[in-house]
């Protein structure tokens, strides 16, 4: 579904990603773990068209997307739920969700899609008219996820959804990711919470200094000495 080959990119003259290859098959739940500054967020931003690649290719559903703008990529069914939620804080919850359905294809069906999103996140429905800024951290993350689903994506790439949340809320976020996966949505998850991530995803890549250091099934990675030492503190 998503194929990345030989990808290099960065900011200004600083190279962040080095000749990176990554693949996500339809229906998979793939995780990308790594330390702060390893290039995880940069990779997601490059996939969704916020940052342009220097070289290499990104293919989504058989189509080259590395030259497209972000707004065209979401229209193809790839939704990026950004780090730090990035809600439109001066707009209501309902309006934030509507913005998620902005592509013409999904705008017409936004009311039905919103019902589906509300069924996943019932608390959002209770507060539909409130401004996004008035929500708690956990609720804001739910809204960011709900908004990302409003474009009816086939692939969701999600950046650090557990960041800054209480442990109980973190489990809730992982539960929701699990149930989205069961609904048939392909997921590429970036996380620093390595333990919970490896317990939820099918497969994972370990990113170190802008390069893939290790990859494999989550069961394999949980047993790897390197992962145990560097990321699980064992």
């Amino acid at each position: 579904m998503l194929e990345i080959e030989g990808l290099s990119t960065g900011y200004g003259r600083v190279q962040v990603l080095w000749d990176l290859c990554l693949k996500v098959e339809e229906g998979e739940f793939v995780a990308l773990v790594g330390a702060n500054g390893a290039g995880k967020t940069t990779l997601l931003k490059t996939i969704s068209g916020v940052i342009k690649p220097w070289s290499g290719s990104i293919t989504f559903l058989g189509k080259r997307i590395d030259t497209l703008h972000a707004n065209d990529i979401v229209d193809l069914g790839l939704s990026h739920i950004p780090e730090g939620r990035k809600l439109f804080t001066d707009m209501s919850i309902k309006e934030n969700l509507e913005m998620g359905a902005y592509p013409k294809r999904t705008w017409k069906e936004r009311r039905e899609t919103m019902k589906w999103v509300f069924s996943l996140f019932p608390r959002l429905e209770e507060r539909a008219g409130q401004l996004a800024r008035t929500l708690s951290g956990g609720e804001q993350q739910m809204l960011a996820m709900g908004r990302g689903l409003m474009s009816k994506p086939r692939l969701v790439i999600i950046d650090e959804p557990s960041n800054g949340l209480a442990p109980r809320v973190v489990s809730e976020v992982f539960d929701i990711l699990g149930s989205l996966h069961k609904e048939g949505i392909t997921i590429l998850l970036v996380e620093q919470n390595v333990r919970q991530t490896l317990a939820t995803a099918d497969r994972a890549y370990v990113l170190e200094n802008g390069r893939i250091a290790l990859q494999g099934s989550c069961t394999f990675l949980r047993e790897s000495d390197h992962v145990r030492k560097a990321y699980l503190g064992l």
Partner: protein
Amino acid sequence: MVVIRDIIITGLLLGGIFALVSVGLSLQYGVGRVMNVAHGEFIMIGSFVTFWLFGSTIHLDPLVSILITAPLTFVIGWILHATLFRRLMDTSPTLDVFEGKSMLASFGLLYVVQNIARIIWGSQNYQVMYLNRTVTGAQIPLNRLVALGVVIVIGVVFYIFLARTRMGKAIRASSQDPTTAGLMGVNINSVLAVCFGLGVAMAGIAGSLLSTLYAIQTSMGLQYTVIAMIVVVLGGLGSVSGAMIGGVVLGIVSQIVTYFQPTWTLIAYYLVFILLLLVRPKGIMGK
């Protein structure tokens, strides 16, 4: 008491015009970060198109001429953004650099537009005589009342546009976070061009109305640019509702000063401006 009532009424009438003059600039800066120093020139274009249509053989009603000046100035603004400002934005490393470049470019635009207008209309004063009588009972000129009515209608329509329509929501989302709006599927370049066009169109409408209130001349633009900038900073940079409130505040200040000493109004504008920057540098509605 009668004095206070009159000051408030005339202040509101003037403030409404100030608000309309400023909302467009606020929109251009708030969403697109274009510091459009040529804003007043589009007010001038609106005025002269209305004057020209009024004086022509069809003798078009100045209010009806808004139906021509608004779309005309919108298209001018849209084209300017799609060509000039978008290119400047693409070649600027950061938004701050773009802001500076946009100011210089619009400064050039100011002279180009003004001098073309001077070639056509010269530098003398013109006036559109329209509804130049007072309403019975009070001493309020009818044309000012009509102008305020138009301003209110435009304010309400614009508010509904921003609150309810798909494009309006895209504009609000883009003004808060353009990158994330792009992730939602918003084509940021087309939103910016529409915003700039709307800003110029508001200047054009303000120009049509102003031509019925004051004498117009091809060099009239700059004074309105200055007023708009004061109002926009007063209300909070980029805040549309702030520009509305700021316009009314400045209108009332202007009338209070005019009552005591008419020649001091410009001094008063700048005093209010400086005081506000000291006390509340982010403006009335600023965050």
